[in-house]
């Protein structure tokens, strides 16, 4: 990472998380408990706890700028309902959330000034969190303080240490980008290529996954290992299907056929009802939602595959993965009708040519052959 900042303000010990916690009177024992919960949240093995404790002790307060573009605020709602309240509050006490439309007290010019000040003071060091996609078709579709989303993204991205697109809209375009994509919505990675990007997709993402990624950066100051779609492998490394407790029913071929049949009541596999679990990568099946209470499949609804690109355009949510997404039956019917016509025409032509061949056929007698000598 480039060092843009001149050491104008030396960062003292007071700026580390360890110091901040001691100031709050948090005991070492409480801190260890916090680290154990954090390791679990970051999907790291418990053996990492000492390393996490050591790193968190020394972690510095990062500045975070959160920009909301074409979004529904569902991601922010998800984050603010993160269930490990204590852990989150500790993390949020230790980060400096300098700009967030929905959560900040400042409004109007003061709000924009807060963003500009944070960018200036922490240039090259702040984390940029984005939720929502960016309209590039016509920038007028979404503006903040008269600045188009695209301009604000490009400007704010310049000084970011890393960018974390939160939610499927920011990560892959999501619902705004769904066919016919009226605003020309683009994802962050479509527009920015020269910064490290950690995608945290989901509609919304699991709260502890959002905080887990922030914590990883806070703890280790590095990017987590990413998959080919730019998602941290710790949370998106395994498919819903592979971690699903209903998997044994799939393997046996026991499926719910409708939402209220015997199979549905017995908690059988939801593949036939359109479950996208086999092709979706997320942590729902183990981390679960609402304080580890449940996740969609556990409550009897198929997975929509919301953490995958184009999940809104992947055919019906209630049709199985093996079913094509286009009107195959109609097209096949047309093709069949055309084929009957073409086949008949070809048949007629063949008949005509064989008839003609027969008509032109000339018999050769022995005399004719002898003549040639």
């Amino acid at each position: 990472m480039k060092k843009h900042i001149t050491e104008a303000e030396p960062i003292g010990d007071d700026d580390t998380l360890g110091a901040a916690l001691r100031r709050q009177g948090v005991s070492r024992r409480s801190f260890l408990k916090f680290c154990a919960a954090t390791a679990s949240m970051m999907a790291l093995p418990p053996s990492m706890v000492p390393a996490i404790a050591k790193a968190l002790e020394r972690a510095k307060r990062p500045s975070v700028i959160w920009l909301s573009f074409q979004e529904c605020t569902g991601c922010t709602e998800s984050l603010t309902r993160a269930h490990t309240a204590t852990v989150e509050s500790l993390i949020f006490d230790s980060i400096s959330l300098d700009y967030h439309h929905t959560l900040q007290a400042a409004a109007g010019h003061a709000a924009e000034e807060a963003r500009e000040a944070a960018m200036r003071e922490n240039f090259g060091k702040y984390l940029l969190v984005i939720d929502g996609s960016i309209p590039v078709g016509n920038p007028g579709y979404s503006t903040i303080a008269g600045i188009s989303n695209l301009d604000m993204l490009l400007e704010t991205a310049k000084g970011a240490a890393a960018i974390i697109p939160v939610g499927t809209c920011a990560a892959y375009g999501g619902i705004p980008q769904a066919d016919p994509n009226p605003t020309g919505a683009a994802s962050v990675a479509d527009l920015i290529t020269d910064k490290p990007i950690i995608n945290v997709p989901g509609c919304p993402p699991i709260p502890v996954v959002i905080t887990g990624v922030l914590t990883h950066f806070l703890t280790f100051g590095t990017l987590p290992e990413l998959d080919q779609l730019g998602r941290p492998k710790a949370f998106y490394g395994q498919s819903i299907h592979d971690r699903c407790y209903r998997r044994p029913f799939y393997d046996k071929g026991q499926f719910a056929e409708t939402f209220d049949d015997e199979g549905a009541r017995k908690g059988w596999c939801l593949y036939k009802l359109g479950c996208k679990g086999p092709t979706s990568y997320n942590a729902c099946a183990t981390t679960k939602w609402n304080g580890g209470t449940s996740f969609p499949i556990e409550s009897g609804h198929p997975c929509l595959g919301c953490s995958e690109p184009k999940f809104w355009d992947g055919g019906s949510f209630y049709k199985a993965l093996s079913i094509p997404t286009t009107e195959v039956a109609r097209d096949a019917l047309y093709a069949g009708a055309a084929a009957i016509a073409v086949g008949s025409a070809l048949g007629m032509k063949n008949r005509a040519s064989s008839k003609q061949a027969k008509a032109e056929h000339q018999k050769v007698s022995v005399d004719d052959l002898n003549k040639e000598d």
Partner: protein
Amino acid sequence: MVTAPFPQFNIQNGDDLTRNVRPLLYEIRHALQDLLETGESRVVDLRSIPLAPGEEEKLINLLGCGEVVVKLEALGLSEIYETQYPGVWLVTHFNTDSSIIGRFVEITLIPEILKAQQEDMKDSLLQLDEALLSGDDREVV
């Protein structure tokens, strides 16, 4: 026929859907053997393993409860007890809203978090000195 007002998920504790309970018990057994032979502790994070509804309860029931039960007040409650198998502990961390933020099976002599920590002891030494210096003890006695 009376239909239930909402779907009844008929998943029983004994169904053992993911078949992960037994392997977990084996893992605990091996960890216990390691602890005996090499003194090495191990921690199993129950959240990192897919478990069907009822399976975690099943595992906890199988492990049972032993002689030591500890309650910890540290950023919310923590429940720590030794299972009926000495050396195998169940550690459950709650946050201040009383929801579970982590649940671990620890195979160790005593869970790390129960031990007094260096930093905390240093602080307590200072506080004790302060108390002695200020003469608070005499008033109490």
